[in-house]
């Protein structure tokens, strides 16, 4: 069964057509890279897939289930997790609490107004585990405000992984990172098991190329080229619209 199938998806903001008839078929366990220049509609496509905005037309199917009209929060419960290009974390809380909130989001415990959250050992342990997956276990009790940008990127990923998603959507996970930090995140993404399907947006093609099985090139809201890594890189249209050569 296909992990994620997007058919004829369209979205306009006023007169501006941002996503035009986009088709996307991602198989389970696949690593799909979506590339395109600025303003290609990559993040809008992600917002449509995660349900933060509603499409004008088209359909989104997650593991055989039509989720086109499902609420954003429902999609999280159906196994979809995402990270943000612009870091969207809880600034007043510790790293541990940030990840705990990710775990709590899928737990019925989130409605409980009587228990002490700090004493929920199973949640705390799982949160520490998720932080150690991204190499941040030593600073798990540090407030987010006292961490570096690179560390926050990894917290974003830890929160998404903590939810144990079936489909993981990464919105420019390398944005704003130094070369060293990029390498660390690359290594980290390579450790994600194949039980997780990964769809990744990247503006800069070089950093994410190694991770991708297939690549979709988006330009002005339309899919221009799609294929394996080699096919897309070799395609003259890629050079034309993307590499500018």
């Amino acid at each position: 069964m296909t992990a994620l199938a997007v058919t004829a998806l369209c979205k306009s903001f006023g007169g501006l057509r941002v996503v035009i008839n986009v088709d996307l078929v991602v198989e389970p366990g696949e690593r799909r890279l979506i590339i395109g220049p600025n303003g290609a509609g990559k993040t809008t496509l992600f917002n449509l897939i995660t349900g933060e905005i509603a499409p004008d037309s088209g359909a989104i199917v997650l593991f055989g289930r039509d989720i086109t009209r499902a609420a954003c929060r429902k999609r999280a419960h159906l196994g979809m997790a995402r990270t943000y290009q612009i870091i969207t974390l809880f600034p007043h809380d510790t790293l541990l609490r940030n990840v705990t909130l990710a775990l709590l989001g899928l737990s019925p415990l989130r409605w409980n107004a009587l228990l002490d959250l700090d004493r929920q050992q199973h949640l705390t342990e799982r949160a520490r585990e998720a932080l150690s997956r991204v190499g941040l276990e030593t600073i798990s009790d540090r407030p987010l405000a006292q961490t570096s940008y690179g560390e926050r990127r990894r917290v974003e990923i830890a929160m998404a992984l903590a939810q144990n998603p079936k489909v993981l959507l990464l919105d420019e996970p390398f944005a704003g990172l130094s070369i060293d930090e990029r390498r660390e995140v690359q290594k980290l993404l390579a450790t994600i098991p194949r039980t997780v399907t990964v769809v990744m947006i990247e503006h800069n093609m070089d950093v994410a190329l190694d991770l991708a099985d297939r690549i979709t090139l988006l330009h002005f809201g339309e899919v221009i080229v799609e294929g394996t890594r080699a096919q897309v890189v070799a395609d003259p249209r890629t050079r034309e619209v993307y590499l500018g050569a």
Partner: protein
Amino acid sequence: MAVALIGLLSLPVWVGNTYYINIASQILLWAVLALALNVLVGYAGLVSLGHASLFAMAGYTAALLLDAGYNHGTADLVAIIITLLTAAVFAVLALRATGIGFLMITLAIGQILWGIAYRWASLTHGDNGINVLTRPAPFGISLVGASSFYDVTLGVFLIAVVSMARFVRSPFGASLRGTRDQARRMTALGYNVWLIRFLAILFSGFWASIAGLLFLYHNKSISPQVVALTTSAEALLMVISGGSGTLLGPMVGAALVVIMKNVVSAYIARWNLVLGVIFILIIRCMPEGLVPGSVRLWRVGWQAVRARLNGWAMRPAGERTP
């Protein structure tokens, strides 16, 4: 904390004077309202300017039912239920927005209810308000005296504080603070942000209704000025001046406002001016509120003292002059 608790419990003994015991009761009942409002302002990031109407809704409902001859138990229970329903209506209308939008909608609904209290004289007796002749006697204990009323108010206040403390530390409390800081992220993580906020408004409305009932029984009357915007603004000032998003802050804020209103006004006719100056000083020196602000200044001061001492100890012995 134990000292504070013993101090509060024995207050009628060491204060003695009925007038001051009544002021202490007022501080406690206003503190319950401030704590209720703090759930929204401090933890949900939703600033309401309509809380006086929830407070007064409970008072008016109970007063009307008592006036119609119902007993205290029925009147109070119905008052709480009606207030919760009002809070639900507040929530459904106001949660269409956050920030200024939320504030304006709560303000508008508050003004509508004030208008009803003031103008629908056949129901609410208009400007005259409603008098309540008796206080309830739970388990046969008479609350006629200032001291016994204080004891009950203190009991209710302590239950409110404990319930708030638990709420803040609970998973739901953490979720609520999450919706304050990153609503978008919370939705993507699987939280129902709207429902979390709705339930927080109901929780806040519940404690506002309890405070309203205490107010009614303390004053043995209720009138439209309780519903007025001034009351909502005062409650908000209690929360902000004491420190929103803290447990102790709203209590300190309530004490400050009630003392200014009742004690200082006896000595200075323009007590409002004094209150204004105090608020400006708080905003100027401790924008986060009295409680967190004092903690911060204390830390800064202590560090300065320690640095001094260290600097002195580091110097060679011959140069040490205290």
